[in-house]
């Protein structure tokens, strides 16, 4: 999206600065574009965005001239003096008098969402502060995606080394692969520390103020952090994230009944662990635990394992990730009571039927991991001070992440991104939402297309997806009256996958045959998480199948799985080419 905005600017500057050959080319491309989705994004006035590594200064614009927005009445930042709490409130009256604030933007929560927003805000010339009550990096970096990837990297290798059949097929001989639990745990912890430091340093280097303490909203444009520090900002972003959700009746002791927070420390590897919930988190942990020698029992409230995945992908994933492994499962049941191991007794799990609520079974296992999803972390945020009522803990927002109050009105200058709004509980979605908000507060309207945000599950092999699942697409097609087609390609036909002896996999494209629009792409197979971006970028940029199918992929690479997918799709002849023919330069 940024790029399409930058195109217009590049086009203008290209005439003046013809030496920038790259921008001329792109400018030419853009000027002949007729895509409505692209033109929507072009702002009415030039704005500053980086383009192909060139800072805005390269175009000779003064930053301040363009970051000033029509609705921005703030004074120039560097010369502004700090206000004490008392006179800030005095200046809040909406009477047209220019207001002064400590910051242009305050972000509450320094997770991946807050970090992404802060970096973009600095780039846009905003004076930015970020409030963190715990550790920089939030869930993702400290207790989520980051350390879990370290564990999964280990489990992937372990699994490979243990698979005698796989090794033999490659002509390799490995005897008695083993692991050191503490070593694995240290790897995860070291990675988290490293990424956390990187995050902290990147913000410090750019001049983002990191304010330590719990942030509470006192009123419009006013935030308290720590015990009694009060700061004001023109705009505030809530990015407080989430915590593991533990259903009632489950007693988490952190040792034998644990959440992902504890599991990532890998303090012990039980012989037998029950995982409550078979979503991303549960699935990834099942991959880790089975590779390290545990047996796993899934407990899933819905009738099917892996709800939320495209059914076909889910079915295949179950066949590869569940059935051949030391995993069994109970579906359609709730775990009503989980008691940690004590007094020489194992962990007991009481199951009831999800529909009839009748007692069904009692399990005795060595440990239980609660992976039933995540709950927003919005307590103590002071939302009552601005008349906002959470819905199941989530902060209600509109499609522009603007917070909605109890009466259904927008709260001015207040936004909420990431897990706290519950729109799409993924780290990179939070970051994208944050960037979108910064775009808005700097004068460029921006609505994030959530259907272009990819998601991935880092099992072995990986699962990834973007856009709609097939049932969702068919439902939408039914409602809106268009046709849906599906094509699939197998990793079995991909040279690189076969060279790796990892032919197990499927890629699936759901699209509109009438205009070539990509509705969804789902991949299960080797490096699926890395492969999805070609599809997610195509959706984000509005690229149609009839165009992307001519893009060239290096051979032999896994990316050819997608290449084949696009080429296999049948788009009706009359579908127009939204992007013009490439221009030779």
């Amino acid at each position: 999206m940024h790029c399409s905005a930058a195109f217009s600017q590049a086009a203008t500057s290209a005439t003046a600065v013809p030496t920038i050959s790259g921008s001329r080319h792109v400018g030419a491309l853009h000027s002949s574009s007729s895509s409505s989705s692209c033109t929507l994004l072009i702002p009415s006035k030039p704005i500053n965005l980086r383009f192909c590594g060139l800072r805005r200064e390269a175009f000779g614009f003064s930053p301040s001239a363009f970051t000033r927005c029509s609705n921005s009445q703030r004074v120039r930042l560097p010369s502004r003096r700090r206000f004490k709490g008392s006179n800030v409130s005095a200046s809040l009256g909406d009477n047209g008098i220019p207001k002064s604030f400590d910051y242009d933007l305050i972000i509450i929560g320094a997770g991946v969402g807050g970090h992404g927003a802060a970096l973009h805000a600095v780039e846009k010339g905003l004076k930015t502060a970020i409030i963190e009550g715990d550790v920089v990096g939030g869930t993702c970096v400290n207790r989520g995606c980051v350390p879990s990837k370290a564990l999964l990297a280990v489990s992937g290798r372990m699994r490979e080394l243990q698979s005698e059949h796989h090794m033999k097929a490659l002509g390799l001989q490995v005897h008695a692969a083993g692991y050191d639990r503490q070593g694995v745990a240290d790897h995860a912890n070291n990675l988290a520390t490293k990424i956390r430091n990187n995050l902290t340093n990147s913000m410090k280097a750019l001049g983002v103020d990191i304010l330590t303490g719990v942030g509470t909203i006192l009123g419009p444009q006013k935030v308290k952090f720590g015990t009694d520090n009060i700061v004001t900002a023109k705009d505030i972003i809530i990015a407080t994230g989430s915590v593991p959700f533990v259903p009632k009746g489950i007693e988490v002791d952190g040792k034998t009944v644990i959440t992902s927070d504890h599991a990532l420390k890998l303090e012990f590897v039980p012989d037998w662990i029950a995982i409550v919930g078979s979503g991303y988190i549960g699935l990834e942990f099942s991959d880790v635990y089975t590779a390290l020698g545990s047996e796993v029992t899934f407990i899933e409230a819905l009738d099917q394992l892996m709800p939320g995945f495209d059914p076909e992908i889910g079915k295949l994933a179950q066949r590869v990730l569940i059935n051949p492994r030391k995993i069994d499962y109970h579906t359609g049941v709730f775990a009503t009571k989980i008691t940690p191991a004590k007094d020489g007794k194992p962990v007991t799990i009481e199951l009831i039927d999800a529909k009839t609520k009748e007692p069904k079974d009692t399990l005795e296992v060595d440990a239980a991991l609660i992976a039933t999803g995540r709950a927003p972390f919005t307590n103590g945020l002071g939302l009552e001070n601005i008349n906002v009522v959470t819905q199941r803990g989530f902060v209600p927002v509109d499609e522009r992440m603007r917070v909605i109050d109890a009466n259904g009105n927008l709260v001015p200058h207040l936004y909420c991104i990431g897990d706290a709004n519950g729109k799409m509980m993924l780290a990179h979605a939070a970051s994208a939402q944050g960037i979108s908000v910064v775009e808005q507060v700097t004068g460029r309207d921006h609505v994030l297309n959530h259907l272009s945000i990819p998601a991935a599950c880092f099992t072995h092999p990986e699962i990834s997806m973007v856009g709609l699942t097939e049932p969702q697409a068919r439902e939408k097609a039914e409602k809106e009256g268009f046709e849906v087609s599906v094509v699939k390609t197998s990793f079995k036909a991909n040279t690189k996958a076969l060279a790796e002896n990892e032919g197990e996999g499927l890629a699936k494209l759901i699209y509109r045959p009438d205009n070539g629009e990509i509705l969804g792409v789902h991949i299960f197979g080797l490096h699926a998480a890395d492969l999805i971006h070609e599809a997610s970028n195509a959706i984000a940029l509005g690229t149609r199948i009839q165009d992307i199918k001519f893009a060239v992929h290096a051979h032999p690479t896994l990316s050819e799985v997608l290449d084949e997918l696009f080429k296999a799709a049948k788009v009706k002849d009359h579908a127009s080419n939204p992007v013009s023919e490439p221009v030779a330069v």
Partner: protein
Amino acid sequence: MATLSPFLSKTPLSNTPTISFSSSISTPLKWKSITSFSPSGSSSSRSRRRIFIVQSKIREIFMPALSSTMTEGKIVSWIKSEGDVLSKGESVVVVESDKADMDVETFYDGILAAIVVPEGESAPVGAAIGILAETEAEVAQAKAKAASAGAAAPASHPVTSTPVPAVSPPEPKKVAESAPSGPRKTVATPYAKKLLKQHKVDINSVVGTGPFGRITPEDVEKAAGIAPSKSVAPSAAPAALPKPAPAAAPAAPLLPGSTVVPFTTMQAAVSKNMIESLSVPTFRVGYPIITDALDALYEKVKPKGVTMTALLAKAAAMALVQHPVVNASCKDGKSFTYNANINIAVAVAINGGLITPVLQDADKLDLYLLSQKWKELVEKARSKQLQPHEYNSGTFTLSNLGMFGVDRFDAILPPGQGAIMAVGASKPTVVADADGFFGVKSKMLVNVTADHRIIYGADLAAFLQTFSKIVENPESLTL
């Protein structure tokens, strides 16, 4: 892996019958185009009308033709197990075609009575791979049919077609469900449950030895009479490694106070080789050798850096030149493999392990080069930098325990080689010479273990004779 479903397929073929497998003998025409019928089906079609009521409810599941070129298919996995209730449209089995794996669905409700072709095996298109019974009562009858179908199916292994006992095995599921009412619940781990199903073991016949009396995978394998070697090893190995898990101790109970130290990689490799050696029929031949001349030579060349190991290796190599069969090996139990090079492996104890650095072309290199080479190899072995070809290319092994005062011993033949020589200490001994004079000479006992499939007693004896001549007249060693 692609799944193909008649309901989701993008190809607008109505009904997509290409993947249906289940054909009833009462409706043969409909499916005839895609599945051929096994002879056993046609026999029951006589007086169809009468038998229809009974017979038609037992259906054979055929190997479907997934492509026009497919003649045979491999069963990747059975999604359903014997005794599972199937409903129309459910995926039952995954069949591998040349390009992808495909789910095959049933067009009938029923019970999967028997699996005729198990996972991993192939069957020609149209052959019965499983039997579907409509009701519980017909399961036994279907099993009988499965037995005959299995016998008729040409591609499936005879082992798999052994008739399942007429009494249907109790379903593990049912046992599990009825168990909670009893006084003590039987608990089996997920993998144990899979093994129970796979080996058709009744859960009640297994005694759980795991924590809290639960049934472990090892218990099931024991009950199924499987040596817990192949499938347990991968599961037990990782479990035994982490320090806090004293879990895997399946065989003998540990004596109190004893500790279990897992093998290092090198030790594991030794263990594996030793077990493998048991499959080779070996015999041993011993020979006394007078070493005074060799000792004298050794004293002479020692200042030039020559070691006893190099001397012995060189002597053995020179003897092997004359007796190539002792340098041969038996790879497949059917032939001699004569090695082009004489590579003498020498067993070395190192850091609690055992490794055999190899002196390559020991017959061609002179003593001094050989000694130099040996020093390098030992250095590399100590620093664990030996390349695979430097320890696994031996054609004959030398093991010397003489320096410890061992006078004779017996070596185990390493896999892939024809013979190994065990060298004892050279000790002053009273010997009588040919003229009847007594004298004290240094005598060393060597003992060669050889693979009797290729090396016979006379071969070994002749080799040892040559070897002793070289050692007793060692001048040739320095040439």
